[in-house]
Each structure stands twice: as C-alpha cells, then as structure tokens.
C-alpha cells in the first residue's frame, strides 16, 4: 500500500491564536523552524514521501507568506499535470474570519473532495514538526478496520497547551473510547496530534451532515459525540516531535534540535524534508569565528561567536558579537560587538553595533520582523572586502 490511494488536506491556520507574535504576518504553517524550514514542510514532505499525489491546503487568513513559500509546489514534486498542490484561499466575506473549525473549512472545498478519486483522506495541522511515516499510518488505518484513525503521542499537557488540546481514553485494542477537550490533568496522557485518516466518502457525508446541524468542530462536535457510530482508532507516534504552542515552546524546540541525535531523528536520510530552495552560498566562517553546539543554514557569514543557537539562512554575525542560546531567523544582521542571549529574532532584524539584548531561559526576548534595534550598523558585513 502506498499513499496513491490517499489524498492530503492541510490546515495551515489552526493554532494561530496561541502564537500571536509569530503569526503576525503569517500562518502557523509558515512559521520558520529548524534553520531553513517552515512548519508546513513537515506534513507536506511526509505526505509526498508516502506517495500522496493530491494535496489541498485550506487557508483562512494571512496567507501571503505561505503562497510565496509553496509556489507551484515544485520542491515537493507537487507541480504536476496529474494531481499536485491546490491552495484554497479564504472565500466569502471581506476581512473577517473565513471559517470556523475543520468542518466549515472542508465544506468550503466540497467540490474538490467530491471530484477526487482517492478512497482515503489524510488530514494534518501545522503545529507539530515530526517524522511521521504516513505510509505506515495509512496501513495501520486499513488494518484496524476503523472509520477514522487519529494520531496521538504519550506526553504531559504543558501549561501553554491547556487551552488547545484533545486527549483520548483508549481500550485494549487502541480504539478511542472517550475524547477530552482541553484536558488539564497532570502526568502522561494520550494527546492528539491532530493527524487523521478517514474514508473520503465518509468524510464528505460527515461534513454535509454536520453543516446542516450547525456543527463546525470535527472532533468536539462530531467525532467525540459519535464514538459508537464512527469507530476511531488511536495510532501512537513515538518518533521525534516538536510541538509549537507558544513562544517558549518555539524557542525551546528550536534549541532542542542541538542535542545529540535530534537532528538525525527529525531529518532521517530515508525520509527527506523538502523546502523552498533559496540558492544561498555555504556558510563563511571568518578567521576569528568561534562557533559551538549550533546549527547554521546556508548563506550565513560569521565573524563573531555563536554558542548553542540556531541560525537561519543568510544571517550575518559581526566581529566581536556574541550570540548565545538564541534563535536567529533569516536575514538577521547582528552588528559588531552586539551581545544577545535568550533572544528570538524574527526575519530581517537588524541589531546595531554594541547592543545588548538578554532574555531569560524560560522567557526569550522576541524581536519582531524587520525591526531595528539601536543604530543600524554601517554597511552589512560581507564575505569579501574589496
């Protein structure tokens, strides 16, 4: 069984509400993660890697950066005459929230769902970066004989997740017996990762039925209330995962990639993660550079010190600057002599020479997109001085 008999649906906007700073100009799907990726790269690469050829992305708002990132879908091999990537922009009213809940989102693409031929639909949100084997997931779904399969992890409910989680009570055969909404219990729980597999015809029927009843939430309004009618199988994911639910988790999950083995776990060679190519040159380390326990994407030029940090593409670190425990997004320029610790900078930030910025380990300082901190440095550091 390959993914050829399944189509994919991705929801880029769910969970936007818990990440206000990061989604100011973007969707959860387009949040940069891991030095050169965006969150949507993980479900998109996972699905296409499993052979899924048709993927629909149902967006709600703020989707310009997402459109720019996805383009025609070529990087994921989705630029194809047969099937491929379809992006559904929000329909309807100007400015306002375009749909509430998964059901309404799916209803808005009903025609797309109806004209496809695949017998299964795989659905994913974009708040978790993981190495989910969608092929194994589909196989488990078919083997279980369930109507719906939901992926879950064994994990505690962290403080930041308390207003945005579902947990499952499972029977011995791993079928879901009860769904709890915004669970608050301590200790390890079966926390939903909100990846689902469901028959396409069944999904269409469920959405139609729910719409006429004014039910918009796939789990809370429909599945959790009909667990006898729709058998829901729980599929446990045990691999590496990074769940982003607030600024702190964003910061910590980026830095956690620096611990031994984690990069290989999230990016196994047999299941590559694809992203938009930017044709950056390799990283240039100058003569006085000092770098420890960090990951750096291409296009960076390092003249200062970097320790325990994640640097995205095209970051410049000037002479004598010190970057420690930081997440520095694409195109940021750190001026000479600046000192940053526990800082997250969004894209294209400029930190002037000699500036000091310090956050706490549990509360990083966040510098918004395109901001300038202090006086901007003289012309940006270049690799070659002529």
């Amino acid at each position: 069984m390959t993914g050829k008999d399944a189509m994919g649906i991705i929801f880029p906007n769910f969970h936007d509400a818990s990440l206000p700073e990061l989604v100011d100009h973007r969707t959860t799907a387009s949040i940069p993660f891991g030095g050169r990726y965006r969150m949507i790269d993980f479900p998109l690469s996972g699905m296409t890697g499993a052979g899924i050829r048709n993927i629909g992305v149902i967006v709600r708002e703020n989707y310009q950066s997402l459109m720019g990132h996805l383009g025609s879908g070529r990087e994921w091999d989705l630029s194809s005459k047969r099937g491929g990537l379809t992006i559904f922009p929000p329909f309807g009213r100007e400015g306002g929230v375009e749909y509430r809940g998964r059901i309404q989102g799916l209803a808005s693409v009903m025609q797309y769902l109806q004209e496809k031929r695949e017998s299964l639909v795989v659905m994913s949100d974009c708040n978790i970066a993981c190495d989910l084997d969608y092929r194994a997931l589909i196989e488990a779904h078919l083997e279980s004989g369930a109507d719906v399969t939901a992926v879950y992890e064994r994990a505690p409910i962290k403080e930041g997740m308390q207003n945005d989680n579902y947990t499952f009570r499972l029977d011995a055969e791993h079928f879901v017996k009860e769904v709890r909404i915004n669970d608050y219990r301590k200790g390890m729980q079966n926390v939903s990762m909100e990846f689902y597999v469901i028959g396409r015809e069944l999904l269409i029927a469920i959405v139609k039925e729910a719409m006429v009843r004014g039910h918009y939430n796939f789990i809370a309004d429909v599945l959790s209330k009909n667990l006898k009618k729709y058998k829901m199988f729980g599929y446990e994911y045990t691999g590496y995962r990074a769940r982003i639910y607030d600024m702190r988790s964003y910061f910590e999950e980026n830095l956690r990639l620096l611990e031994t083995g984690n990069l290989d776990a999230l990016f196994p060679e047999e299941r590559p993660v694809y992203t938009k190519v930017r044709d950056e040159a390799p990283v240039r380390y100058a003569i006085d550079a000092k770098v420890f326990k960090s990951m750096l994407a291409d296009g960076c030029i390092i003249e200062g010190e970097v320790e325990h940090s994640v640097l995205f593409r095209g970051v410049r670190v000037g002479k004598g600057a010190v970057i420690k425990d930081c997440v520095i997004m694409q195109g940021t320029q750190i001026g000479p002599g600046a000192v940053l610790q526990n800082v997250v900078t969004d894209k294209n930030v400029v930190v002037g020479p000699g500036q000091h910025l310090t956050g706490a380990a549990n509360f990083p300082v966040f510098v918004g997109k395109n901001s300038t901190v202090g006086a901007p440095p003289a012309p940006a550091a270049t690799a070659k001085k002529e």
Partner: protein
Amino acid sequence: MKECIAMLLAGGQGSRLYALTKNVAKPAVPFGGKYRIVDFPLSNCVNSGIDTVGILTQYLPMVLNEYIGNGQPWDLDRSYGGVHILPPYQKASGSDWYRGTANAIYQNINFIERYEPKYVLILSGDHIYKMDYGKMLRYHKEKNADCSIAVIDVPPAETYRFGIMTANRNGRITRFQEKPKKTDSTLASMGIYIFTWEKLKKFLEDDEHDNTSDNDFGKNIIPRILAAKQKVYAYAFEGYWKDVGTIDSLWEANMDLLDPRVPLDVWDPDWKIYSRTAGRPPHYVGRHANVENSMVTEGCVVDGELESAVLFAGARVGRDASVRDSILMPGAIIEEGAQVSYAIIAEDAVIQKGAVVGARPEHTADLTKWGVTVVGEGVVVGAGAKVPPKAMVEKNIKAGESV
C-alpha cells in the same frame, strides 16, 4: 529567434584531475562547497540574460546529464530555449564522436540554427569566474566584430601556459600564439568567444573540409579566422578567472574562496551562483569544534577542528580530528582523531580514526616531494594509516599501513 545563444564545451575528460574525473566529466567536478564547475558558466549565462545554452558532452556524461536535468535550478527550463544536453548522435550520413571542439559545434549546426541566432557564445566548462557576457556582447556589437575573444592579463612568467593574443590600440587582435615560449604580450585567451554566427558557420564548414585540421577552436579556427583578416577583437576581462584543470589549480581555486583578498565572491546577492542541491538540514557544529576561515554547507556535522577548509554537503568531521587547507567533497567522512592537511578528499571517501593524510609544506623535509594529496571517491583510508603528501589514492588503504 534568439539574439545570442551559448554553446558550452563540456566533453573533456579532464585527465589531469586523475582520480577526481574517474567517474565524472570535468565540468561535473564539485567546487566551492555546493557547486559543480559547470554552475559558474551556466549561472553567468542566466545572470547575463542568455537563456539558451547547448551543453556538448562526450566523456562520462551520466552524472552531468542527471545534474543538469531540465535546467530548472538555473532558471533554464524554458518553453523556447533553455538548456539542452548535446551528445554526439547518429545521422543519416553516419555517426561520429566529437573530434575536437570546433567539430563538436559543427555537428550541432542544426541545433544552433533552430534559434536563428545572430551571435553565438562559445564557453568551456573548466573555468571558475564570474563574468557578464552581456557586456562582452555589447563590445562585440560596438566593434562590429566577427569574433571577440575574452582575454585576461597574466604575469609574463605564465604566458607559456596560455594562448596569447597580441592586440593593437583599438583592441583588434593581430597575432595569436598558442603556448608560446617567448612573447611580448601578456593577454591570455580565456577560451570565451563570441562569434557572429554566419561567419563562424562558414569557418566551421571550411575547417571541417580540411583533412589536416584538428578541428579545435584554439588551434585551428582562431588562426584561420585571423589569417583571413577578419575582424577579431580582444575583450579585456578584469576579475577572478581560473582554469581548474589540475589538482593544484582546483585546490587553489577552492582556497581562493577563503581568502578575503581574492575577488571571488559567491555570497554576492546580485550575481548568485545557482546549483542543484540535495536539500539537507542546516549543518551542525558540535561542542568540541573549532571552525576558522572555512566554508561549511548543509548536511555537514563538525565536531573537530577546521582551518581553511571547504566542506561539501554531508561531510562529517569527528571529535579531535583536524582538517586544514583541505577540501572535503560530498559525503566525505573524517573520523575521530584523523588529521587531514593539504588534501582533497573525494565524494564518500572515509578517513578512519587516527589516520594522517597529507602534510603541511613546512613539515615536509624534501619540498620537491610535497604537494596536494588526493583520496579518490569512496576510498577508505584505514585507522592509523599514513598517506604522504602529493599521493593519489585510488584504492583502499589498510589500517596502520603507510603508503
């Protein structure tokens, strides 16, 4: 129709690169951390506004074919024009290998004429440089030339290695000497020509009918066109240009990327060098690493010492290992405690624990025996083994062995 199309000569074996061209043609040899040599002329074409390129291949073309593919990474996947691989092919009148660079173009006259170009740019696939061919084309048109040859000033001591042009004050070339022992001029041909197509076509046809000709641009076409008193002009290029046809020059050109005084800059956003990349995660530098004056790219993992090193995608350097003045091609692995100096480690080669490869010149008693060491593709140098400077290693070396 297209005003100007480019023909890139990529058929050469590059035999002086020995182990590095055992499985690939010279233009496909990795360069500069994430590129292959051919990326430079191809990116120059696109950045110069030339969107039609024929690549003439002959020697081991598989890697190059796969690499070029549909040309998308260079923006050369066009509905009219774009990049085309042109191997020798069978015709009704028979088939033939490319006998020389001129013959290779001659055999593809049909391809060129499909685009009805006014000018044809002839390039070779073994040089590293950034050049705006658009400027050269404007020069060619201003001079109303039949042929323009890009030239670069070389030190008098090096003229014997090049084709040397003598030009008058207006830039018109009056004399051409191939690798002269003695000459007054220092203008070396860069192997970059713009021809007015109808002229070139005529000279290609004449050359083809000359049984004594080697059908080579430098040896035959240029002397022939000069002898016929055609308007041949020298286009002076200033900037970085290097022939990377030998182990030493390939090594030097890579090291030039690390030298702030050398004007070879791949970080310039206004003249990007494009390449087809594997798409690996960002590189990781471990807690024991010390990285100075080096280039490192995606997929690398470094926990040792790098000083003046160029690492390609997926290269790994273990703890307490050191890599100095060296190049690690894609997937090369340097295990814990190994030492690599003045060396090129080819794709997927493994230098096992504690092995020593190459040496610094100052640590070599007899400098005549010193040089860049090469470890060939996929070769394993066993733990604790020693490989001397200037060695060319094409077979595995057992643990503890000294070559």
